[in-house]
């Protein structure tokens, strides 16, 4: 398998007003989904299918990625109430669901547990702090994380993607990258500390 690293960072920074507008748009289109408005489903698909399919083709073969892509949007059509616009944007919701379902497919042969509930219940955004301001802060934080990821060496970045996007164990990563498990652990450890440093959350110990 060829593992192509991301070279083009698509940075974006959502101002609070933009975030609020996006949230309102998401809420409006999902309200139309609740009314079984097929054009709303078309709009959501046109806006987000590329992102969803992009993630899934990174994880799965093309045929399975297409199946899961359809499944993700169909889930939204069937259960629009599962999306809570106060917790996350619609794209984030769909991407998390796509990854969850993609991992389920990958894990079908690994006999491990599901990372997320079907409806993306464990969406990686806290629901105790709702509101568009927090959404914008969270967006900016993720932007800093993306910047930090691109500061890593290709080997570190690949290790992170394999672990946290594709759900590979350290042993699997070691085998695929042909390095000792200890090296994988070191790379992941270094990468996470780098992220913490960029976010201003580093602890003194790792700098020693």
């Amino acid at each position: 398998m060829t593992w192509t690293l991301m070279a083009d960072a698509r940075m974006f920074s959502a101002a609070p007003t933009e975030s609020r507008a996006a949230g309102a748009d998401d809420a409006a289109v999902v309200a139309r989904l609740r009314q079984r408005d097929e054009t709303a489903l078309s709009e959501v698909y046109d806006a987000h299918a590329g992102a969803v399919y992009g993630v899934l083709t990174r994880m799965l073969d093309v045929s399975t990625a297409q199946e899961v892509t359809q499944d993700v949007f169909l889930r939204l059509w069937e259960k629009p109430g599962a999306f809570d616009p106060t917790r996350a944007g619609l794209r984030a919701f769909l991407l998390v669901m796509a990854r969850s379902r993609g991992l389920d497919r990958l894990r079908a042969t690994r006999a491990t547990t599901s990372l997320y509930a079907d409806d993306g219940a464990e969406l990686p955004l806290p629901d105790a702090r709702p509101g568009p301001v927090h959404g914008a802060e969270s967006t900016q934080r993720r932007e800093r994380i993306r910047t930090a990821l691109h500061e890593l060496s290709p080997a570190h970045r690949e290790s992170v993607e394999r672990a946290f996007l594709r759900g590979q164990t350290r042993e699997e990563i070691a085998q695929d990258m042909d390095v000792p498990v200890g090296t994988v652990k070191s790379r992941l450890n270094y990468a996470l500390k780098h992220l913490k440093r960029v976010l201003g959350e580093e602890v003194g110990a790792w700098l020693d």
Partner: protein
Amino acid sequence: MAGLNDNTHDRACQDVQEQLEVQATTGAALSPAARAHLATCPACQAHHALLRDLDLALLEDMPHVAPPPSLRSQLLDAARRAPLPLAAPRRRWWPAALGAAAVISGVLALGTFLTPSRSVAAALPDPAVVVSAGGPLVVASNDHAGTISVIRDGRVTASVHTDGAQTAWFTEGVRLGGHVFLADAANDRVLEVQTDPLKIVRTYPVPDGVAGLTASSDASGGRVYFKSVRGQVGTLGGAHVTIATAPGMPLADVMDGVLLLNGTLYVTHHLTGELCLLDPDTLATRARVHLGGMPVALSPLPGGLLALDVTGHLLKLDLSGRVVQRWAVAGHPDKLGVNGDTAVLSDRGGTVTRVNLTSGQVTQVTLTHPMDVVSLPDGTFAVAEGGRGLRVLDGQLQTTDTIEHTPPTH
């Protein structure tokens, strides 16, 4: 002592953060001790938040890839077929538009539009499935009681009610000796019914619902094969295998054909347009053939078989599954009966189509809601006509007999 406590706490943090990373990659659950620690430790909570944000950052950072254009139309088609969120019971039937048709049929049931019948039957419930049981016919109804009736000599001679948690939704029936097996899609089960005297002798749960049935008997006894909605194939009460999966797909409006013929078990998976050829004993897949369209019913022919594609084609296949002839038919026929060189297809949208397999001639008649069709030993066809009753057609689609549905009185 303070130093010792700090060291202990640091070790605990290290362990919990490692568990959090494993959880993020493999989904493994945290230990109770780790959960307790996480609830009170700001450093580990920050690590947890970092992992969650990293997850989303990676997702958002992936390059966009345009899906194939066909995926959009497939999604919208599937959405149209998906059940309404509050619909109950779940009904797996094709096409979804017939949900409206069912309402219409309920209205029509109050009228008497049938031509006067030669055979006067007592209390025939609104028929959904008809099975030829040698001499008698067995008719299953999706009425409130899920009534199963036996018809002999043009009249109902016995009936029995079923006891599903949901109102029954019978989709198919097959005969094995003196018993008939009826698929109740609303209750995810198959009922084994003895015809004389009429009684339900056994219920077979089929998780996720039944998409297709076929029966066979040999020296070792009888077997009924099923295909589940999600893609399992097996024998009732016996082993099963998975030939396809449709995880997360809306599984409403699904049906498939199952046929045991010449030592091969043929099963359609209409979602992919495939025909699977299985070993009937081991259930091992011998071959997969891509037919295209949406094949939903199968029927044997000398030296081959017929496959009905609900998108509007009838296919003649050889025993390897290769298409040797194809006829286009109007509408969305989903049931198939064959007598000699005559195939009769029923489409609940309101038509019955006859295909002469020799000449290729295709003719149609309009009926109310033909729910099912079965070939009878005398060369005729019995049609379960929703809202009307049972209609017998000859090979030219001329009505030779009718048994009126008797609406319930209140």
